[in-house]
């Protein structure tokens, strides 16, 4: 026998409790990893070069306020601007679904490739979309979800405008950060619904990264003191501000994560205290036969650490397997797409488990260290 096998046998002496303890750690760490992965995906900044060159222009008052279409030629003339497209939220409901399940935006189809070049489609699909006014393109995830194919016609009833529009699917794209959206012609929206010469916002591409600050400043200045002042910002800044509009998601997720970890500490500490309290007489015997405080502390710490790490292996490993090999878009009904468990997230969860194992062992170790052999033996009689 070794000290290691002694610790192992002790840890598994109450198999039900050990199993429940490991499962509680595993489930909590699974939840922690899921929360961190979700937070990362929500706040994930666009990393492609196209994103670094894109500028979002919205009404300074709020995203819900439209912008006049007459701003287009003014923006196009600003030096450094390569291409500009309107981008109008349609808010359409598909079939009889109660809620909108994918976003639809009206834009200038001819500018799609220049501004959002990462969308992968065949040349024929691009051309069909650019040339046909009532056409649309949809992301691969949405197409798969609703079993839609090129050539199908779909009708969406807008929750923004008092109209319904029917579209013909010209292409199915993939390769963007979010392959769920539907894009169609602003011109078709203007004609079919009463947009009153307004658009939702503008997206544009600048010629170089160096042009970015000059262009955003020039756009903001161009419409200052007008009836529709704008706020132009890089795509990354826009996404972060968009997230902040939904509330402080980071603080919210961090709060839930903290509660998860705190609860886990309480559960683990309670489990270890119970395990040690049941064994006080044995620990007193170990002390009597020569085990010192530090050796008893090592036994308790190793047991606590081992249970926590077994839970971590199960929880983090389970999360990694599910999120890596599972069909996340399908499982989350398209809410999450990438859901990548990064090494950093796994390391953080592993550190939480390690810390948990140490913290949970402190209270029982202190009580055992303070316990005299005689008092421990008195628990026998």
């Amino acid at each position, binding site marked *: *026998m*070794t000290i290691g096998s002694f610790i192992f046998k002790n840890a598994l002496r109450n198999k039900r409790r050990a199993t429940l303890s490991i499962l509680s750690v595993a489930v909590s760490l699974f939840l922690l990893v899921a929360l961190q992965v979700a937070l990362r995906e929500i706040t994930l900044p666009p990393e492609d070069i196209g994103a670094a060159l894109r500028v979002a222009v919205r009404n300074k008052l709020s995203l819900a306020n439209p912008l006049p279409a007459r701003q287009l030629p003014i923006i196009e003339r600003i030096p450094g601007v390569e291409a500009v497209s309107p981008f109008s939220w349609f808010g359409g409901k598909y079939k009889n679904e109660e809620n909108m399940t994918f976003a639809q935006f009206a834009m200038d189809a001819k500018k799609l490739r220049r501004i959002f070049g990462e969308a992968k489609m065949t040349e024929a699909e691009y051309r069909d979309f650019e040339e046909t006014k009532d056409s649309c393109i949809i992301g691969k995830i949405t197409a798969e979800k609703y079993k839609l194919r090129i050539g199908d016609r779909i009708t969406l009833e807008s929750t923004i405008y008092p109209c319904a529009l029917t579209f013909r699917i010209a292409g199915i794209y993939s390769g963007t950060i979010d392959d769920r959206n539907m894009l169609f012609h602003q011109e078709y929206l203007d004609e079919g619904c009463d947009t009153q010469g307004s658009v939702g916002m503008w997206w544009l591409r600048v010629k170089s990264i160096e042009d970015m600050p000059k262009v955003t400043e020039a756009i903001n200045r161009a419409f200052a003191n007008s009836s529709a002042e704008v706020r132009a910002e890089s795509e990354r800044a826009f996404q972060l501000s968009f997230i902040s509009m939904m509330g402080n998601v980071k603080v919210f997720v961090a709060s839930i994560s903290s509660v998860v970890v705190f609860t886990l500490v309480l559960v683990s500490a309670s489990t270890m205290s119970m395990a040690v309290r049941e064994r006080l007489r044995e620990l007193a015997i170990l002390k009597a036969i*020569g085990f010192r405080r530090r050796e008893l502390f090592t036994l308790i710490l190793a047991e606590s650490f081992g249970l926590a790490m077994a839970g971590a292996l199960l929880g983090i490993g389970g999360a990694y397997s599910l999120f890596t090999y599972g069909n996340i878009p399908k499982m989350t009904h398209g809410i999450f797409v990438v859901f990548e468990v990064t090494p950093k997230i796994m390391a953080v969860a592993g550190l939480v488990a390690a810390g948990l194992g140490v913290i949970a062992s402190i209270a029982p170790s202190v009580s055992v260290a303070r316990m005299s052999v005689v008092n421990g033996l008195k628990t026998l009689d």
Partner: protein
Amino acid sequence: MSEFSLMLDENGAIVSIRKLSKIYEQGDTPIAALNRISLDIKAGEFLTLMGPSGSGKSTLLHIIAGIDRPSEGECRVQGVDVARLNESQLADWRNQNVGFVFQTFNLIPVLTAFENVELPLLLTQLARAERRRQVDTALELVGLSDRARHLPRQLSGGQEQRVAIARALVTDPAIVVADEPTGNLDSHSAHDVLTVLQSLSREAGKTVIMVTHDPKAAAFGSRTIHLEKGELLNGSP
């Protein structure tokens, strides 16, 4: 050679107790469990301590074994004033010099008889093969070689207590302390256990100190002393 080598005083006493007192505080009231006791125990002796409950016999045994400290006086075991050792030194000293046998056996339920006996040796630097040899010898001495792979729940009470004796012996201590070792056993098993303890004293030269309520058990010892209200009735230094 161990750090605490066998040392006897001029009378050949392995345990030398002088004016030993132990006072517990019960609320504001001091209770004297032992009152200025003086006692010598010779090497190889099988001493039995008798007395009514609360007479201080277990307290005396605990102080000799180094798991409790006196309030006053001196308790020298093999020349070492046990009360002067710190916690860590005491732990080492107990591991090398004292074997414990308790009324309730106190074997670790998830370990086999072999592993229970091996437990004190995990604290030593002995190689695995040497540990195995010593455990086999200890189990053979108590007649349980054929039960080495059994868990405590697979053993009878008498067998469990004999495993506990083997655990007490495995480090080859000079002193074996036994606190009512037959209290939970039937008469047949008690006889077996007492015979083993007696042979430890007579044949292996161990000093055995046993607390008991039972005069029949005390008869196995080479000397019996009685305690009452913390004082010796017929002991002599």
